[in-house]
């Protein structure tokens, strides 16, 4: 990452030119006035043209990356760490003399190494510096920068890197390292907590919106008022949880007075349950079930089939035959007999 700012090229050029002119004046021997005047004139001329010349002398560079990185966060006094400066430009260059290093406080460079790589659409420069920390405290390296005329921006810019800082400590390196890791872990935990809180907040907000708007819209209209069902009669039809035989007896009793298909279905289902089959099975399944060994129950099951699915004209007779078989089956079952005679 590179930070680009306007460089102070005008002042730099003027001061540098003036400095060179004054240095020249001091070197002139006494009695050489004509030479002095000529020098002064040259200096003034140089100063007057310094501003445009300095701006024009900036190289054309478009810097896309300028960053500094260190390999250690903590060193002992006298210890060495490494600073890596990464520069990426969009131009093809063999050298990058324009890179100005930052100030090295409480540390000094011991060696350096430059690596250049031509990449697609530019050049990569990596400057690796070995830096020795000096006294306990902090070793700080201010941002490196490049002053250049950016062709894409159409003006002169200063591209700057980040600053880096290394802790220089006399303490136990392990302890210091652990302490450093602890700080990092704490920072990560804080960020995680922050993220979790944000996500939870979003969920809560979404739930509130869903509850307030979506569910309210989907809620069906209240059912229209209906007349009350004959509760007493229904109670007689559907007795509470009892044995299958007792329930069969109860529903068969209802069938005696109500020969509707709906009641017939319930009688057939009750017969299936007595046989040990569930509703949804067929007569053959029920006859194969272990509970259907009783001949009366088998007769009732077969009769129920005709009463349930036979032609309307024949259902009455089939129903009677079924009821007779159920009665015989009920008498043969103690629970059923009790329910039947109740």
């Amino acid at each position: 990452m590179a930070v680009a700012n306007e460089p102070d090229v005008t002042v730099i050029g003027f001061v540098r030119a003036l400095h060179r002119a004054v240095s020249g004046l001091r070197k002139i021997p006494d009695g050489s006035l004509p030479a002095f005047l000529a020098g002064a004139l040259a200096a003034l001329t140089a100063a007057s043209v310094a501003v445009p010349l300095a701006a024009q002398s900036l190289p054309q560079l478009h810097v896309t990356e300028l960053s500094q990185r260190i390999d250690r966060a903590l060193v002992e006094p006298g210890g060495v760490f490494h600073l890596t400066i990464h520069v990426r430009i969009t131009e093809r260059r063999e050298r990058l003399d324009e890179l100005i290093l930052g100030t090295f406080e409480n540390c000094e460079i011991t060696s350096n190494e430059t690596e250049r790589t031509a990449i697609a659409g530019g050049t990569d420069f990596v400057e690796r510096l070995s830096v020795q920390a000096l006294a306990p405290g902090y070793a700080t390296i201010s941002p490196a920068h490049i002053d250049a005329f950016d062709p894409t921006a159409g003006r002169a810019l200063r591209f700057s890197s980040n600053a880096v800082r290394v802790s220089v400590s006399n303490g136990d390196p392990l302890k210091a390292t652990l302490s450093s890791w602890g700080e990092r872990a704490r920072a990560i935990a804080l960020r995680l907590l922050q993220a979790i809180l944000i996500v939870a907040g979003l969920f809560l907000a979404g739930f509130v919106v869903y509850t307030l708007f979506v569910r309210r819209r989907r809620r069906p209209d209240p059912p229209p008022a209906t007349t009350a069902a004959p509760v007493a009669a229904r109670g007689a039809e559907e007795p509470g949880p009892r044995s299958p035989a007792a329930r069969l007896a109860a529903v068969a009793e209802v069938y005696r007075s109500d020969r509707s298909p709906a009641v017939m279905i319930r009688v057939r289902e009750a017969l299936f349950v007595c046989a040990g089959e569930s509703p949804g099975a067929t007569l053959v399944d029920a006859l194969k079930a272990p509970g259907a060994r009783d001949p009366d129950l088998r007769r009732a099951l077969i009769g129920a089939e005709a009463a349930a699915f036979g032609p309307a004209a024949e259902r009455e007779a089939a129903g009677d035959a079924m009821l007779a078989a159920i009665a015989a089956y009920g008498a043969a079952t103690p629970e059923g007999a009790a329910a039947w005679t109740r």
Partner: protein
Amino acid sequence: MDTVNAAPVRPREVVDAVAETIVGQAEAVDALVLALIAGGHVLLEGAPGVAKTLACRALAAAIGGSFKRIQFTPDLLPSDIVGTRIFDARTGEFITVHGPIFANIVLADEINRAPAKVQSALLEGMQEGRATIALESYPFPTPFAVLATMNPLDGDGTYALPLAQLDRFLAKIVVGFPSLDEERTIVDRFGTQAVALRRGVASLDDVAAWQRGAREVFLDERVRNYIVDLVRATRGAKYVDHGASPRAALALAALARARAYLADRRFVTPDDVRDLAPAALRHRLAFDYRLAADGISAESIVRELIAAVPAP
């Protein structure tokens, strides 16, 4: 239960007569008679030598009808089936010669060995109940039933029947191998003597009466709904590319009525429907590639689909 007495000879007697000739294969024999009662055609699938052809011959003999067999081959022509007009030199006129399709029971042996043109000629006749020779249309004798066989083992040199043509068969029966005892009986019975067919157990009029009687069998609304639910369950089911058509529901209802009639019942039960559903549905479904990829048999899928629909 009540009985139906519309005809002097009961169809069960034909079943028993065929069963005297055929050892085992009770399901196939029942299905053949059911299709005859329902007025439909049957596709029999099974390995060679499992009495498919013999069952058809025994059925034709038992009802006293005409029986013709057509061996389907790749060089068969439509005129070999429906017939043609030939010039009679004595009278100096063209006369019509009916093909083997003009019979009460037509056995189309290995139907998938003939090309599509020949299959179409047969299947059109099955649908219309008549054939056109030159410009004249001739009705088939009644009752008319095509019993077609397919051998699932030899795939080479066969022409698969399209789903639309398979749909015209009322039922597809899978004829399996006989059991150990049945196979021993077969060796004892047919090892030394010729096959004896019981002839004239019933008449063609009896068959017509059965067909009328079966149409009068009562089908309760809930059983009808069960039929429709079964057919609809095949559509969009896993592994099924194309489900069964409404013709399948009609076929299943007809078969169930025929079964009730065969059992001397005046009404159809859910058992009739459930037991015959595989025969009515198995040849009407198209399965997708996943079936083969997962190594699952089509028959097991059909049975699972049927089992998943609760009976009334």
